[in-house]
């Protein structure tokens, strides 16, 4: 019977470090990060993919870490908020969140930062969104597009305007640097 199934071994590459864990098959990637690797920057807000606080990048793409199992990620490259920057050396996005007050309580914030970071890459790659006027070209970077793409990250403090100001300031800076 499966009532006492044995733990399974899985090796994750988390923020550039290889981590081998023995986990119950039921352990989500989120709980593996928080409870097994003590990387508590990734937050649990709903555990059902309904808030975005648990957003991490797996092989370069943002996902909800609460809705995937640790054992499914053998060999995957996981980037968490801890891999984006530190208080001593924050990323541009993290610094912009502080400047724009893109948070209040701070609980959804790591997820917002992860999504904001990933969204800029999605724009760069020309991904369309629900509000894109024309599907065949690359979407413009504007607040409506950004808001739609960030909507998988809820913020009950409702720091939305500051969050989008922060992401926009990084996008603008990146664009200027490229030109």
């Amino acid at each position, binding site marked *: 019977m499966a*009532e*006492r199934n044995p733990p399974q071994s899985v090796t994750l590459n988390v923020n550039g470090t290889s981590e081998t864990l023995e986990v*119950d098959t*039921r*352990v989500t990637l989120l*709980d593996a990060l*928080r*409870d097994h690797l*003590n*990387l*508590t*920057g*990734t*937050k*649990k*807000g*709903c*555990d*059902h993919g*309904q808030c975005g*606080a648990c957003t991490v990048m797996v092989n370069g793409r943002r996902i909800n870490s609460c809705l995937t199992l640790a054992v499914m990620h053998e060999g995957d490259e996981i980037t*968490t*908020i*801890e891999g984006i*920057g*530190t*208080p001593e050396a*924050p990323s541009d996005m*993290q*610094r912009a*969140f*502080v*400047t724009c*007050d*893109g*948070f*209040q*309580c*701070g*609980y*959804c*914030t*790591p997820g917002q*930062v992860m999504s904001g970071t990933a969204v800029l890459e999605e724009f760069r790659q020309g991904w369309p969104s629900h509000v894109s006027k024309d599907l065949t070209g690359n979407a413009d970077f504007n*607040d409506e597009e*950004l*808001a739609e793409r*960030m*909507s998988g990250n*809820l913020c*009950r*403090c*409702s*720091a*939305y*305007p*500051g*969050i*989008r*100001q922060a992401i926009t300031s990084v996008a603008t800076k990146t664009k200027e640097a490229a030109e």
Partner: protein
Amino acid sequence: MTDMFRMDKPQPRLFDETVQGVIGKPLDRPEGLLKVTGRAPYAAEVPEANMVHGVLVRSTITRGRLTGIDKSALEGLSGILGVIRSPEFVRNSAQGMANEAPIQPEDHVAYFGQPMALVVAETFEAARDGAHRLRLSYETEHAEIDPTTTSEIDTKPDSFGDLDSAMAQADVTIDQKYSTPGQVSAAMEPHASIAWWEGDNVTLRGSYQMLRFNRNELADSLGIDPENVRILSPYVGGGFGSKLGIGSEAVAAAIAARELGRPVRVVMSRQHVFDMVLRRSETHQRLRLAAKADGTLLGIGHEDRVSNLPGEEFSEPTAMATHFMYGGENRLYNHEIARIHRTPSGSVRAPGEAVGMLALESAMDELAEVAGIDPVELRLRNLPEKHPEKGVPFSSRRFEDCLREGAKEFGWENRTPTASRREGDWFIGCGMSGAGRANMLVPSEARVTLEGDRAIVETDMTDIGTGSYAILTQIAAELLGLPMDRVETRLGDTRFPGASGSGGSVGAGSSGSSVFLAAKKIRARLAEAMGCAEEDLTLQDGIARSGNIQKPLSELAATAMTEEGGIKPGAMGKEFFQAGFGAHFVEIGVNAITGEARVRRMLGVFSAGRILNEKTATSQCIGGMVWGLGAALTEELQHDPRTGGIVSRDLANYHVASHADVPMIDVRLLPERDDQANPMQAKGIGELGISGAGAAVTNAIYNACGVRIRDFPATPDKIIAGLEALGR
């Protein structure tokens, strides 16, 4: 004991004299980098050695008695340590400032979703599985769950003058019913506690707003001395009222830790947060306005029915702001509390104003329409000279300026007549409302230590996202003449002096004043050390100056100076009515086909005394305004009509606003000093932004398409029904 300064007299404006230049500035939050890098530790995130995991089990009947617990389904599951159940378990979270245990119901069940037991296991996964499998048996009793039909209703009438006569004599009247659904705080961090015992002492790492009270509540729940309880809440992932009082997860964690002799962590699932944490009551309201032809109010009637469990003290104070917003001699209230068996209700951000102002400000809009007066002008014509019921003067009130300056900045004069502006499929319209929220002072204490040119602030105040770390640091830095990075603020530990806590928008004024008073005592000692009068002392960037003498603080405070400050309410709170005011302006699009409403622009202009940090104050206002937007358009608790249980018990079914619902929001804060409020001249701002905001949204919907929404929220189905009734 700290000597408590009583707020009996208007206070001098010391912050207008100090020169450090940090107070009021839009400074970054000192803890900001910890939060954006994921390093700020929240309640569930500091594991204790040997810690185990508990998951709560809820009742699946509405009312009755627990008769048995069947653990057989847990047999053979690995890692299960036990099913914990104790007469000390609490029925629901304590109400704000209860300061004593919530009801401990033993075997009685009073609502669907009540916490009944705790399954503890070596791992979270095992505990969650065990909690799902545990079978409870009950004897059920009949339960009334519908507030509109229930038999048990408490009634609290109140009146001034004769409203019926005023209605009869008035040139124009409004008599309408409004309803708002239940709502929840839905803080992003679910309620979480880690408890462990050392001898007779329990430590709880929790997520709480008011530690001074929470400590007593937990002690009372456990039947122990508060001296034996320590609570730590340095970071709180949002509260909005839901973490005001000690909750079932904290009590269960403490009991389980005691029984098992190991640290226990209990984190509520999101669904359990809906089931077990206090909701905001639904309301049914009747608004009557009696006015002369020129719009001057002769009377206001605001009757309401809210609900709560039998025995709960709290009831949503729906008409709170109606008492003071507008004039009119004849006033009538009737507050009804329907006693029903649903998840009990309690404080959710801006209890009273959040829902009462939806009705009052909608009714004012309807009056403006009927009387043919501009809605801004109607409000300007009804500003009372004094508090219309208490007869006391307002301390400071820039409501008129908020209305006028907001209208100007928004371009209110460009508003078009009802249902006359169309862009493609979208009706476009504008709406506005007033905002008001009473200001209060709650006893609060803090300790400030100056050692050399560094200061430490300590208080059990919390920062639930409001900006306490920022403003308390600014207050100490400003008064002690130190740059921000020379002041460290330590919060969220009951070993520090007891603060007001975060709730009712009292935190900044109350705990800020305690820090102010402690720092001011240090200023006095520095003046003494400098041999000058306190008013001749200037402190800036670590240097003390008096006349032509100047000395570094590193020398003056080479030996640490520690002072405690405390404040409590006094005559000023009785002799004056204190409140923050504001005005909201909204432009909205309503889809003529699908009935979807999307806010396009939103401006809030507020006056709330001295602003301590323009950046965090603005964020608080934006937050409140978005809550208003959510109340107007999306937020709604749905209850099962048979059990009363909450059906929309997750974040997919309970719709808080998402990014796409929220445009870039404009906030303007008008300069103001409230000398009667506290020594800083600051008033509460955390709840002002929500007051009236939702009504500005639905008033804009009316202007856009002619559909008046009186049953909140204005979901597409209701707008379609309205459009079809108009033949649109």
